[in-house]
């Protein structure tokens, strides 16, 4: 579209003319095609006049983007007419005189003052690089490296600790201490409420929100937290760990007490209030160490079919009965579980580490040849990229099949221990009136199997020095799981 400079003689001071014309341009929505005004130098004086000052006769030039000269003049006349009417409303009078022929920018027939009167950006001088023309940089959004969602949930240990004998570890009777932290418990509850409302999201968003709520402070603690929420049946994760989704709200019968159930999946306080009108709900039980949202227990009593009651009352909660036992009946043996893991193709990494004796150590025999990984079987951490865009990939190398498998980190570590022929013991005992399964911390079970243990009670394991204690786990459940995993149950 051509650019024209159209002009009218004015006998007022520049500022009131500009103000009224600016008002007219905005009123008419012309700011896009009439962006600025210029004034010629005064005609009726020989004295030097400061730019824009005095009430000398000047020509007002408007820059107009218009297809033809005639249309450019039409813009000018319309603007002057409206500006005049605004001036009259304010009790003033604008005196527009004759007009010059519309011209192109480089052929203005009169000397013009260096001031540019811009209708949106105010007044500035020609060639002046005003800061107000500059778009300031956008505020930086906080970005953090959330890392590999399937990476280690354990902080890296710089030294190489000597692994304790797992069999000796689980022999003594456990000390069950809950150590609840009310503030942290409240934050965990808020996180679960948020996850329930959001429904789904990315791993990165989970880390951001969790850090914001203070339930984690980096990607390692966030990994641990997401895993605990999966154990409790509140969320599920995609195979590659990059996305999560909330799970349906459901009541699960306690394996040790069929008259009571706990709440899994999406939560809301409003739904809880409605459920309390049906059954009694005691105060929430804190998780050990306030590591997760508190358990919501429901006293269902001897209700014959709680699912029917829920349906009849219009409550959007599923009745899952003894979920742990139902799940255990459908779990595969460890080899079949390994087959279900995500297989990925690889490119040669810059650096490689393998998990050995409780720590990652550099592994120089690992190779990727034609996309095929080769090296000793085990749990690996591969490093890619330069400093600017580095990332890690954690997985299990099955040397026999030349496959690199991705999945739950503890599960892969367990697999590596089994493949190495390391002892994987567990102990079941009745202690302080509760049935307890004790595992060495270094032999934590794969997520899917551990979930069956947690769903038996709705409680996360208590960590007692270097071992984990799962409460209210019936012997049959423990022994079936041990058999599936090839664990020796003491």
């Amino acid at each position, binding site marked *: *579209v051509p650019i024209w400079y159209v002009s009218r003689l004015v006998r007022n001071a520049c500022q009131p003319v500009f103000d009224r014309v600016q008002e007219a341009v*905005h009123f*008419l*929505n*012309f700011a*896009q*095609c009439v962006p600025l005004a210029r004034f010629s130098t005064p005609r009726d004086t020989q004295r030097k006049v400061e730019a824009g000052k005095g009430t000398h006769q000047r020509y007002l030039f408007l820059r107009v*983007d*218009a297809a033809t000269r005639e*249309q450019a003049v*039409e*813009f000018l*006349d*319309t603007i002057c007419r409206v500006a005049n009417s605004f001036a009259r409303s304010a009790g003033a009078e604008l005196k527009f005189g004759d007009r010059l022929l519309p011209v192109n920018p480089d052929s203005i027939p009169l000397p013009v003052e260096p001031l540019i009167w*811009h*209708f*949106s*950006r105010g007044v500035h001088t020609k060639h002046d690089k005003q800061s107000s*023309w*500059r*778009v*300031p*940089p*956008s*505020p930086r959004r906080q970005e953090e490296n959330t890392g590999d969602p399937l990476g280690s949930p354990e902080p890296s240990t710089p030294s190489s600790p000597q692994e304790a004998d797992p069999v000796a570890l689980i022999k003594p009777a456990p000390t069950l201490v809950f150590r609840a932290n009310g503030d942290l418990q409240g934050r965990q509850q*808020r996180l679960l*409420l*948020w996850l*329930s*409302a*959001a*429904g*789904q*999201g990315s791993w990165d968003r989970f880390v951001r929100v969790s850090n*914001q709520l203070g339930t984690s402070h980096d990607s390692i603690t966030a990994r641990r937290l997401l895993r605990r929420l999966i154990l409790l*049946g509140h*969320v*599920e*994760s995609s195979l590659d760990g990059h*996305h*999560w*989704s*909330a*799970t*349906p709200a*459901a009541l*699960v019968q306690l394996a040790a007490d069929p008259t009571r159930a706990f709440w899994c*999946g999406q*939560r*809301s*306080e*409003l*739904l809880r209030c409605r459920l309390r009108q049906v059954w009694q709900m005691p105060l929430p039980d804190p998780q050990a160490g306030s590591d997760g949202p508190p358990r919501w227990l429901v006293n269902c009593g001897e209700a014959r079919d709680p699912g029917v009651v829920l349906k009849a009352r219009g409550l959007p909660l599923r009745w*899952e009965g003894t*979920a742990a036992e139902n799940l255990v009946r*459908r779990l595969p043996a460890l080899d079949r579980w390994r087959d279900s893991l995500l297989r990925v193709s690889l490119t040669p990494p810059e650096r490689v580490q393998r998990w050995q004796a409780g720590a990652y150590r550099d592994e120089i025999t690992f190779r990727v040849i034609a996309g095929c990984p080769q090296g000793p079987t085990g749990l690996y951490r591969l490093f*890619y990229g330069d400093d600017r*865009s580095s990332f890690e990939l954690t997985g299990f190398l099955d040397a026999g099949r030349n496959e690199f498998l991705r999945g739950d980190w503890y599960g892969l570590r367990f697999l590596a221990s089994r493949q190495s022929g390391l002892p994987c013991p567990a102990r079941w005992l009745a202690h302080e009136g509760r049935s307890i399964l004790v595992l060495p911390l270094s032999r934590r079970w794969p997520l*899917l199997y551990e979930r069956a243990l947690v*769903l038996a009670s709705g409680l996360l394991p208590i960590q007692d020095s270097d071992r984990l204690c799962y409460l209210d786990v019936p012997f049959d459940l423990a022994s079936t799981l041990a058999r599936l995993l090839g664990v020796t149950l003491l």
Partner: protein
Amino acid sequence: MPTANPPAVATGPVTHARWNAAIVDYFTRNVQPGSPIYLSVDEKVLLAIRRTRLGRPDSTLKGALNEFWWVLRNWCRTPPQGGGERLTLPVKPTHDSEGRPTCMVFLAAMVLAAYYMQEDEDHSGQAYFPQLRDVLGIVEGNGRPPGLGHADDALWQRWNRWLGTRGLQPTARRGESGSWKYIEYPLSQCLLRRTDHQRLARLFRNAEAIIDRAWDRDQFAAHLPMLAQRLGATRLAGLLLDTSEPQRHEAIVYDAYDVFRSPWHEVEDFDTFTVAPLGPRSLEAGLYRWEKDRRGNVEYLIYPRAPRSWQEGGLSVEIDGRWHCLKPERPGWFDPLPKPVCLGKRLCLNVNGGSQELNQLILPDSPFWIFVQDPDGFTDDLATWPTPCQDGEPFVLLARNELAKPLATLQAQEFLRWQGDPVATDYDGWSEYHDCQVCRFDWEAVPDLPGAEGLVRKLRPAGGTVRLSLEGGLSVSGHNVWLEGFPPAICVRADAPTARLRVLSLSQNGNPVVQEGEVPTHSLQPLQLAAAGDYSIEITTKPRGQASRFVRVMRWDQLEPGPVLRPFDTRLEDCRLRGACLLGLQ
């Protein structure tokens, strides 16, 4: 013009309540949270509502208008009793069982009256009230219809409030003062008047030689400024060229595009021209940028946009001879198609639209694409969401290599900057420019860049634009709701160094102003939204810029479980495990 006394029509099951609900549904369904809502009622909208929302697919325009008037006049008018007809509006705005305001038929009529105003009539009661009286069927007298008083003020406020509670952006506003104080409400909602439609149709006919009737909306929008220049210094030209309110401008372009799609080339008498209410309509699409891995490998997927006022129903697209069902991804958008796009040519896929009268999906052939961050925070991916990028918002530019030279000029003259070197993509002849940002407002000083006119037009900041965005805090994605204790911060983007911020509480009694003052633009400023409640944020800049936004801060115990569109689960031999639930058990 509407007749003063429309003939009575068979009412059937059609009631005021159904029309009321249908109007609300038409304007708010399938709209992205935070989007501005214009109650832009005109004749084609009333016909579309009757056809698609009220179960009369074979309705005519006359039938739709008659029924609308009948419903309207029965609701708001008393029969003449000696002293003539007058309005009987509820003393207080009411709502139906689902919380919708019950005044929507009346408000629609107010906007319809604005639609009937003449093209050159300005904002004055003298021009507006005769049209309103005509629509209401109150023929005697002039000026404000008797009984209206200032009841319309409360009704519009009620509608604005309701939109706010739904996470939508109200746009109806009261005039500052004078004769258009209250009529500014309907005038602000009417996008193009009937005479504007007619003038546009005439314009298209006159410019037929330079028009391609196959233009999609983006192509049409790109040519609109050139066409509007032919209208000279008119109100309509100003409307079409004014981009200072980008979202209103987009809505006006949408309306003008409806005129463009109508059969203006067959019209003999433009004074009786009306816009086709429905017809074959294309599904528009953008691109979704999907990072295949963390190594920087990206793929661009076709990202179909749900048409405005789309009612949920089966839509499928034909890809390589197979029909692919479109699933809603979020309000206003479908899931990206599974097939990576072939850049550099216009793509047209067949659509099976069922009752939706959609028959094709079009991805325009554009020499560049602008990717921005997810405005709803659902994902960390980028897509061609319509977030304005001219005011400092960072973006990723995907451009043909032919644009490298003009882009280098823009960079050298500091109009545009980006981080690092352009990154070659897997798509031959296309490169990505990362972390781009527009750096200058005075794009009128950009030199001629042959071949890059479209890019310059897209990136050029509009004068006087003010945009406010809410960032940070803790929100529920897609709900325009923040949680107590975690309010957002505000960032005002404008070509002014400071802006006036005013935060009003809509929930508390007493002084509603909770925060007020001058704030710097282009920086994050904390908002003092300590307590749960509804707030209105108002921004003004000199000389004339203004923007506002509704914000809701919710208590934690008010959170309710949200829908899970893509649930994950663990596959077991004979069932799936989702949380504690075993699904698909035989």
